[in-house]
C-alpha cells in the first residue's frame, strides 16, 4: 500500500509499541559530537569496548560512510568541486541512507548504535559555511533524535593544535572552500572557530551533554560511563515516531 494511503498513524503506533514495550533492552542511539581534534573518536572506541564487556550488542556508524554515497562525495572532494549547498545535500543523502540501512535496522533489533558524528555535524559545518540553519535542519527530516548526545567541547586553539600535531588539514576540513585562505592551517583556525561557535549554540538548543574534552582521557571515559547509566532510564523519544514509521513503510512494514 502506498505511503499516502498507507496508515502511517498505525505504523507510528507500532513504532511506539516496539520501543516502549519494556520487555528486554530497547535499541539505544548515542551520538558523539564535537569538532575535529576533540578526542571523540578515542572516547567512542573506549565506550564501545566497555559496552561490549557489559553485554551490549553494539553497532558503530561514522559520518560520511555509506557505501552508496561516500564514493560520490569523495570524488567531488578530491577535485574541490563542491559548493556549500552540494556539500550539504550530499552529506544529507549519505546520512539518510545510513539511517535507513544501518541505524534503524540496528535500533529495531535492540542494539546500541554509537554514531561517531550525527546530524549535528552537518548543521554546525553547513551553518559555518553560511547556510540557513532551518533549511539544513529540514534536510534531515524526518528527524531521528539520539537518546544521548555527548558533545566534546574544546577551544579552537586546542582543536588546531591536536590536528596539526598529526597532519595538515584537508581542503574542506580547513574550510578553504569558503575562507579563500590559501594556507590550510590559517584557514582551519578561522573555519573551526566558526564551527565551534555553531556547535556551542546547538549544544544549548538541543541539550547536549557536554564533556570537557580538555580533561584526561580516563576522566572523560568515567564521566561517559556514568552519564550513560543515568541515561538508561530515559524514555523513548516520541519525536522519532515519524522516522521509524517512514522506514517501516518503505521496508514493506517489516512484516
Amino acid at each position, binding site marked *: 500500500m502506498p505511503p499516502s494511503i498507507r496508515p502511517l498513524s498505525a505504523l507510528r503506533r507500532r513504532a511506539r509499541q516496539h520501543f516502549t514495550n519494556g520487555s528486554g533492552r530497547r535499541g539505544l542511539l548515542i551520538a558523539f559530537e564535537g569538532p575535529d581534534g576533540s578526542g571523540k573518536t578515542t572516547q567512542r572506541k573506549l565506550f564501545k569496548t566497555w559496552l561490549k564487556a557489559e553485554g551490549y550488542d553494539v553497532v558503530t556508524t561514522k559520518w560520511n560512510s*555509506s557505501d552508496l554515497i561516500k564514493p560520490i562525495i569523495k570524488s567531488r572532494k578530491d577535485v574541490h568541486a563542491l559548493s556549500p549547498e552540494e556539500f550539504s545535500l550530499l552529506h544529507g543523502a549519505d546520512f539518510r541512507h545510513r539511517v535507513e540501512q544501518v541505524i534503524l535496522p540496528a535500533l529495531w533489533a535492540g542494539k546500541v548504535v554509537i554514531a561517531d558524528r550525527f546530524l549535528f555535524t552537518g548543521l554546525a559545518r553547513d551553518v559555518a559555511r553560511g547556510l540557513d540553519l532551518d533549511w539544513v535542519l529540514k534536510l534531515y527530516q524526518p528527524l531521528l533524535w539520539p537518546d544521548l548526545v555527548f558533545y566534546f567541547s574544546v577551544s579552537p586553539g586546542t582543536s588546531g593544535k591536536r590536528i596539526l600535531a598529526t597532519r595538515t588539514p584537508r581542503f574542506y576540513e580547513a574550510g578553504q572552500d569558503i575562507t579563500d585562505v590559501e594556507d590550510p592551517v590559517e584557514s582551519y583556525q578561522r573555519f573551526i572557530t566558526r564551527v565551534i561557535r555553531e556547535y556551542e549554540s546547538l549544544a544549548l538548543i538541543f541539550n547536549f551533554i557536554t564533556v570537557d574534552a580538555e580533561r584526561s582521557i580516563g576522566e572523560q571515559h568515567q564521566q561517559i560511563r556514568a552519564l550513560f547509566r543515568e541515561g538508561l532510564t530515559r524514555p523513548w523519544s516520541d519525536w522519532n515516531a515519524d522516522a521509524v514509521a517512514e522506514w517501516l513503510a518503505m521496508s514493506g512494514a517489516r512484516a
Partner: protein
Amino acid sequence: MTARKPELIAVDGIAGPAIVAAARAALTSIDRRRRSGISHWDASGVFDELAVAAGDAGQPSVRTLLLLYAADLAFRLRWEIRPALAEGRSVVAAPYVDTAIAFGRAAGIDGAWLTSLFLFAPRPTLRRFVGGIAARAGRRGGFVEFGFAQVSSDALGATRGEVVNRMTAHLRAAAKRYRIPADRV
C-alpha cells in the same frame, strides 16, 4: 528599445524523452544569439555513479534520490544555469523542480519538506509541462525512469502505474496553479 531579459525556462513532466523533446523545441523558440542551451538532469554525474554502485551498498530510498537530485540541481545552477543568465542568455532546464516534487509527492513524501528542499532554486521565468508516460525502467531515460529502476516498489510505496497517475494529477494541479494549459500534461 529595451533588450529582453534572459529567461530560465523550466520543462517538467514524467517521461524523460518527452521532456528532452520539449526542451529542444523550447530552445529553438529562443533567438539564436540569445540562447545558451539545455541544462539536463545528472549534469554532475551523481546518478551515473549511483547506477554503478555495488549491489550490496543498498538501494536508495525516494528521499535519498531527491536529496541527490537537489545536489545535482545545485551543480546545474552553479555551472550551467546561473552563468548563462549572467551572460544575458536564456537557458532551458529539463527537468527542473516540479518533476522532482511530483515524484516525491507521488511516493508519499511530505510537500513542505519538498518545498523547503528546493528553496535554493530560483523561480523560472516560464514553465512548460509535458505529457507522456515514463518507461517502466531504464537508467538513461530521465529522472523518473531512473527512480523506477533504482527504487523497489516497497520503497516507492506504490506500483509504478500508481506513481505515474499520481504524478500526472500533481502536475495537472500545478499547471492550474501556474495557469499553464492543463492539456499539456
